Structures are given as structure tokens and as C-alpha cells.
């Protein structure tokens, strides 16, 4: 039997707000194995790994590395003890080169001097040794996501770690890049590294890993060798029921145009053209999904439409009104609701109460005010109704939002945004990192609002399951342009989408048809 590299024994994690993220978890990794840690979003995978990497303190339990008990107090400590982590969102400095990023904190050179040549040599050598091909002199901001991931891997490997944690490494990759990553990971496995592969994509786990540990609600619900498991068994262990949620919906009957985008361009502050001549439209009564690898302009598109950032040029009409020069408030008043992908920054004020958060956009509404004062009675009624309708699990309306779970925080946002009669709902990654119940609720609501209230929905998501289930019409974005349009979403396959997302194929204007 292979030597045991790592053992986490009886790990329990309770956050300051009393939320128990892990309960009595035991987890092992042996030399030369890729061990999958799977579970739904919010199952406690990332928390467990954060404790291993020293980002969070352990409440109870012990960690053994190479058979010896280890107390890991911070990431530096973890790296010194042989544990490296590749985060989902890369920890890199965009304006520095690949080499500078990799050797950051361990720069070669005499005294205070930085020996660039030696650093480049170190990186080239490591890149050859581990078969991770990178250009040592390229700037990080010019690198593709796949390249950046290699940089992240090298950063850990060059520091001599033996256990590598990969937190959903394929979430930002195209199917083709994913395949390449797997080849590299298998090579590392054969060199004797222990790799922890966090994912909720079962087919990837089946392809890559030799052992699996399944988490649900912070507890281990199953573990075993991959040969003894199949996707159905694993999904049952993950959620206790079928993973793929089917939404029964009637065919959409789009009516008048609600959003029209024409020749939109956006250039960011370092001169990258993130949106190029983009034109499309959404009609009332339909969900338009936008698929694409993250970073191809979808995020910026939602921010421009909702007024958070300013377009470079082009036209946007919402309900017939050009929004150029309008404030966020004026755009909201046109009937736009917005659910941002980063809910803790754009969606809530964590220290304020459920009530304060739910009413933040209603302060100037006629029925919620008494002159300069708020109509507290009306506001309380509204909030209580919202808590009831959207099944928000909170004890009282003045409870600080930070004490709620991720799913309930998202429900607070949804309750606020869906209650003011908007006829254009712009949502970006609405179900990322939240429990299955809330995910289901939000997806159903999006469909329901289009069918019953004649609302237009713009849905940006990197969850293909979500985008294929909820959308009535689908656009694929690649490098700031529309690469494809599918009007019959039920016939689209993952592989097809992957090709368009990567830019291997692009539809012609005739193939796409009318984008409005």
C-alpha cells in the first residue's frame, strides 16, 4: 500500500456565527494518488481545504502530515509543511511576469538584490521537470486562464510541496484545456505527489481520480475507490437525490423587445477590449442565457447594462429608453433588477439586518415613506411577507444578514430584487455556491417570472446545467463577441457548447439568425 501523505482526523469547523461547516470529517491522501473531494456547493469542501492550508483555524480535530501531527497556522506554514493550494481564483499579480509571480517571496539573489536571470532559469527548469509549459517572461495579465493555472501549480511545486489542493480547477477552463490539465495532473501523480481534486463534476472525477470522499452538509457521507462507485451512486451520496434538476416549462412566447444592445464596445482601464461590437436583444417573456468561459466579457456586459460600469461606445435601450449617461438609480427606475455574481460585495451589507438589506432599493418609494421618514409599519410588513414568500430562514427581521447561510443571503437578495415589479432581470451566476433547495427555487422563479409576469431575463452562468435548463434562447460569448446562438436549447450538447466557448468554431451571421 502507498505511503500515507496526509490525514485529517475528526475535523470539525464552526464559524464565528455558529454555522457548522464541517462535522467530524476524516480524510486521507496517499502518495501518488489523486483523491477527489466531492460535494455540492456549500457542502464544506472548501472550508475543509482552507483549514488544511492554514486559512481557517480548526475548531476540533487533528491533521497529520507524513504521519506526524501538524499544527498549521497560516499558508506559509502549510507550504513549509508540504501542502500547496491552487485557488479557484488565482492568487497572482497581473502586472508582474510569470517568473516574478512564481518566485515571489523566495527570490534568488545576493542580499537584497533580485537575480532575474537565475529566477527565470529556476522557472524554466521547473516548467520542464513538471511538464508545465509556461513562458517565464510573459506578463500574467497577457496569459490565458490555462496558462495562469500552470503558473499557480508551479508556484506550489517549486516550493517543494508534496500535497496539492486544487479547488475546482476546471471551473474556469474550456473542455479542451481541462483535458490538457488532466494529462499534467496524471504526470504529477506518477511522480508521487498526492493531489486533492475538489469538484462537483462527476465525469471529471471518474476520469481522473482513484479515490473519492463525498461530503454533504459538512459531513462525510461516503468514501471509496473509484472502481466501486459510479456517477449515480456518487450523486446520491452528494445530494441524496438525482443531481440534475429538471424544470418543466412551457415554450416561451416572447413579445415586445425589452433590452436592445447595439454595437456595444467596452475597453477596460488597462486597454483590453473586453466587449467587441456586441449586438443582441431580449424580449418580454423569455430567458436569454449567455454561456461562455468566465472572463469573455459576460460579467462586464451585465455591469454595463445595470450601470455599474460605463460603456466605451454603442447603444443600449431598456424599454425603449437609451441608457447612456444614466445613473444606476435611473436605470433601476426603468424596471431593471440585478443579481450580481459577487453577492457579498454587490448584493448585501453583511453587518446590517435582513430588513435593511431587503429594503435598500425601496427607500424612496412613495408607499414606503412618510416625508423624510421611512414608513416603518409598511416596511416591516413588506419584509415579513418577503421572509415568508421566499422562505428565508432567519429568526427575526433585524437579524444581521451575516448570520445567515449563503443560500438564505441569496434569498434576501432575490426577495428584494424580484419584488419591485421589474420587467428586466439581469442575473449573473445566481446559484453559485448555494444549496440545492435555493438553487432550485431561484431557477424556477426565473422561469415563472417570464411566463407569468412577462418579464425578460438575462441569465449569465458558468453552470452549463443551469444555463441549459433555464434558458429559452442561448448565446455563447467568446472574446467579447457572440460566437453562437441556439434557439432550441434542448438540442445543445456540452461538447458543442465547449467548441464555441473556446472559439474553435464560430457561427456565421446566417447560422445565428436574428439576435434581437
Amino acid at each position: 500500500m502507498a505511503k500515507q501523505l496526509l490525514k485529517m482526523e475528526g475535523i470539525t469547523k464552526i464559524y464565528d456565527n455558529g454555522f457548522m461547516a464541517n462535522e467530524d470529517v476524516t480524510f486521507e491522501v496517499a502518495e501518488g494518488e489523486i483523491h477527489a473531494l466531492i460535494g455540492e456547493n456549500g457542502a464544506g469542501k472548501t472550508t475543509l481545504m482552507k483549514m488544511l492550508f492554514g486559512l481557517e483555524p480548526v475548531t476540533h480535530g487533528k491533521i497529520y502530515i507524513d504521519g506526524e501531527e501538524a499544527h498549521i497556522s497560516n499558508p506559509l506554514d502549510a507550504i513549509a509543511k508540504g501542502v500547496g493550494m491552487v485557488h479557484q481564483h488565482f492568487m497572482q499579480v497581473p502586472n508582474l511576469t510569470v517568473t516574478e509571480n512564481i518566485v515571489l517571496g523566495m527570490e534568488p539573489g545576493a542580499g537584497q538584490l533580485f537575480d532575474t536571470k537565475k529566477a527565470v532559469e529556476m522557472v524554466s527548469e521547473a516548467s520542464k521537470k513538471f511538464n508545465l509549459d509556461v513562458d517565464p517572461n510573459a506578463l500574467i495579465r497577457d496569459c490565458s486562464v490555462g496558462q495562469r493555472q500552470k503558473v499557480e501549480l508551479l508556484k506550489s511545486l517549486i516550493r517543494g510541496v508534496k500535497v496539492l489542493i486544487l479547488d475546482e480547477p476546471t471551473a474556469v477552463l474550456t473542455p479542451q484545456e481541462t483535458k490538457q490539465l488532466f494529462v499534467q495532473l496524471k504526470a504529477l501523480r506518477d511522480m508521487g505527489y498526492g493531489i486533492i481534486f475538489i469538484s462537483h463534476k462527476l465525469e471529471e472525477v471518474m476520469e481522473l481520480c482513484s479515490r473519492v470522499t463525498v461530503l454533504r452538509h459538512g459531513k462525510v457521507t461516503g468514501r471509496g475507490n473509484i472502481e466501486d462507485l459510479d456517477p449515480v451512486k456518487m450523486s446520491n451520496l452528494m445530494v441524496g437525490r438525482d443531481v440534475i434538476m429538471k424544470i418543466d416549462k412551457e415554450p416561451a412566447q416572447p413579445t415586445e423587445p425589452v433590452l436592445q444592445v447595439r454595437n456595444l464596445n467596452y475597453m477596460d482601464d488597462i486597454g483590453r477590449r473586453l466587449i467587441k461590437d456586441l449586438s443582441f436583444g431580449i424580449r418580454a417573456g423569455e430567458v436569454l442565457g449567455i454561456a461562455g468561459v468566465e472572463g469573455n466579457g459576460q460579467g462586464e456586459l451585465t455591469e454595463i447594462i445595470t450601470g455599474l460600469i460605463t460603456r466605451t461606445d454603442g447603444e443600449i435601450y431598456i424599454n425603449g429608453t437609451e441608457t447612456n449617461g444614466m445613473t444606476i438609480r435611473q436605470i433601476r427606475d426603468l424596471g431593471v433588477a440585478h443579481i450580481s455574481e459577487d453577492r457579498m460585495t454587490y448584493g448585501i451589507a453583511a453587518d446590517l439586518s435582513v430588513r435593511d438589506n431587503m429594503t435598500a432599493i425601496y427607500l424612496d418609494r412613495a408607499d414606503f415613506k412618510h416625508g423624510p421618514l421611512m414608513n416603518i409599519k409598511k416596511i416591516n410588513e413588506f419584509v415579513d411577507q418577503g421572509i415568508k414568500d421566499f422562505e428565508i430562514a432567519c429568526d427575526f427581521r433585524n437579524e444581521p444578514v451575516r448570520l445567515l447561510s449563503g443560500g438564505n443571503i441569496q434569498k434576501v437578495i432575490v426577495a428584494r430584487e424580484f419584488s419591485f415589479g421589474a420587467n428586466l432581470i439581469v442575473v449573473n451566476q445566481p446559484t453559485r455556491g448555494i444549496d440545492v433547495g435555493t438553487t432550485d427555487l431561484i431557477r424556477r422563479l426565473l422561469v415563472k417570472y417570464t411566463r407569468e409576469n412577462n418579464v425578460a431575463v438575462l441569465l449569465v452562468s458558468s453552470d452549463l446545467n443551469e444555463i441549459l435548463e433555464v434558458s429559452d434562447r442561448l448565446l455563447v460569448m467568446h472574446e467579447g463577441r457572440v460566437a453562437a446562438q441556439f434557439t432550441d436549447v434542448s438540442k445543445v450538447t456540452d461538447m458543442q457548447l465547449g467548441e464555441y466557448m473556446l472559439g474553435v468554431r464560430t457561427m456565421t451571421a446566417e447560422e445565428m439568425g436574428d439576435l434581437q
Partner: protein
Amino acid sequence: MRKVARVETAFEVFRIVVGIILAYIIAILITISVTDTSLQVAIRNFMFGPFTSKRRFGQLMGKYIPYLFSGCGMCFIYACNRFNLIGEGIVNMSPIFACMVMFGTPLMTNLPIVVNQIIMLAVCGITGGLLALVPAFAREKLGASEMVVSIVMNNLLLYLSQYFLKVSVADRTMSQLASPIHPANMRFTRIWPNTNFTTAIFYGILGVILASIIFFYSREGQKIRLVGANRTFAECCGINSTRSLYIAQIIGGVFAGWAGCVDTFGLYDRYLYIALTNIGMDGLIVAVIAKKQPIFVPLSAFVMAMIRTAAVTLNTSADLPIEFATMMQAILVLFVAAENFMGGWKNKIIFGMTEKQKAAEKEGAAA
């Protein structure tokens, strides 16, 4: 998680109480170690000194009333994450303009005292609001730190107030720079004769009520709190955050102006300031202890006033310098502001509660 919210609140209160007790213990220990005072006398003077005579209690109230205003004002500024400390300079500057109206125009001569008090408060408040706009403008428009600008301005306002007094309504018969004696119908009269306890207390109470209403029940107050808690989010909700930041700082300035008004026209017979008063800076400490909530200002202002008065009492009864109070304030603020003070204990309780709840759930499921 209602229980968690309760534990958090309980610990907030507990931390402040422990902070006060520790600050007192340290102060008493220092007193008995560096002076000839016995432990008994030190405790009596320090803890009960302000309540031993009407005059001393009046002295406490004299400190308390301006703190009510400056503390409430700082709650607004602090709640939107701005450290505009201009309140200190406003306390010196705003009564000068009230003196100009008082002695330079016939407006107030024959008006009833209550109307005059309102005029004085109005002039001081408006001056304060306008002055607070300067560091606010520097920050919101020019990107200069409001803290640095306001600290520099405090000294500027001190000397400017002296200059304005000198060229306008100074009493030339006095050997020092001062205004003429405030006429009987243009001041806050004493509730207890020969003490500092004045009718300004009623305005103080009204001020706290007003601040609490604005803070918790008005739309502007709600916007200020949202901007302070998460500015990006507030902007995403369509709130004009810059406007809210200006409003918060103006409100802070108005309240600081009122603090200057009740101090000058309540405690003193003439405008006598020749140095900064510390009322503005203490206002920040009051707001910190009150956790940025005007509703708690009456309590925190009382604690501050007591420390200040106790220090004066000690100064007269033992040979301890009056600056000693500043050290006590520092100890107090240290414990109150240090959120992780007793954090381990708090977490242990929360962890225990969660574990208990999980165990109960398991038991319930098993049954």
C-alpha cells in the same frame, strides 16, 4: 441563529462594562502607587467623587451636555466610515458667529430667552455644518484624507476664531481676549445656582432624540448606514453615496456646532476659549463606545463625563495631573474598540451552542 445574535449583543455590552471596570482598576492602582492617597480615598474620589456634592455633579453635567451633541454628531460621521474630526475646531469657531449676532446686531436684544437660545443654536449649527463641508469636499471631490485636513483645520479654526473675536466683538476692558458678558436673555441658565448644570440639558435630550430619529427612522439616515456598511452595495441599490457622505458629515458638523453653543453659552459667562476644548475629539470616543448608535450616546457620554470629572476631583484631592483622564480614556477605548477582546470566549460559547444544537437534532432524528 437568534441565540448567536443574542450572544453577540451580550458580549458587546459585557466588553464595554469590563473595559470600564478595568480602566477604573488601573487608574486606582496608579493613583495609590504614585500618590499618598489611600486606596479607600482613591476609590471614593474616583468612583463616587462626582456624586458627593451638588457642585461636583453639576460639573459632571457641564461636561455631559456637550458630549451628548458631539457624540451624536460623530455617530453619523463614523457610521459612514469617515474620520472627519473637524468637530474640535467647530466647537471653538461656531460660537464666535453667535457672539457676532449677539453683540454686533440688535436682533437678539429684546427677544425672549428661548427664542434667543434657538437663534444661538441655529447660528452655531449652520456654521458647524458649513465648516464640516470643507474636509468632506476635500475627501469626496479631491481625494484628500478628511482626517488630515480636519486635524490641520482644527488649529486653523482655533486661531481664526481668536482673530475674528479680536476684530469683532472682543471686550476691550478685559486683560485677556474674551467676548463681553453674555446677557441674561442670551444664555442657558443654571438649573442649580452656582453649578454647571444648565437648561441646555433639555436641548441635549432633544438632540439625542433627533439624532436617533434621523439615524434609525429617516431615509437619509438609512442611506448613510447603508453607505457606511457597504458603499459598493449602496451604489448598486441606486443610492447616491457621495451625497450621503456629505449629508452625514454636515449632520456631524451641525451637532458639533451645537456642542460648542451649549458649552460657551452654558458653562461660561463670556467666550473665553484660547485653546482647543477636546469636546470634538471626546465626541469620537463617545461615538466609539456607543457603537456608532445615537441611542446609546446618553450612556457613553455619561461614562466619559464621569471620567473627566473624577479626574478633576482627584486633581484637587490628590496630587494627580488632570491629564490622567486621557490615559483612562485610552484604556477604555482600547477595550471597547478591540473587537477580539474576549473573542475566544465568545467563540467558545457559540461553538458550544452549535454543538449542543447539532446533538439535539441528532437525538431528535434518532427518536
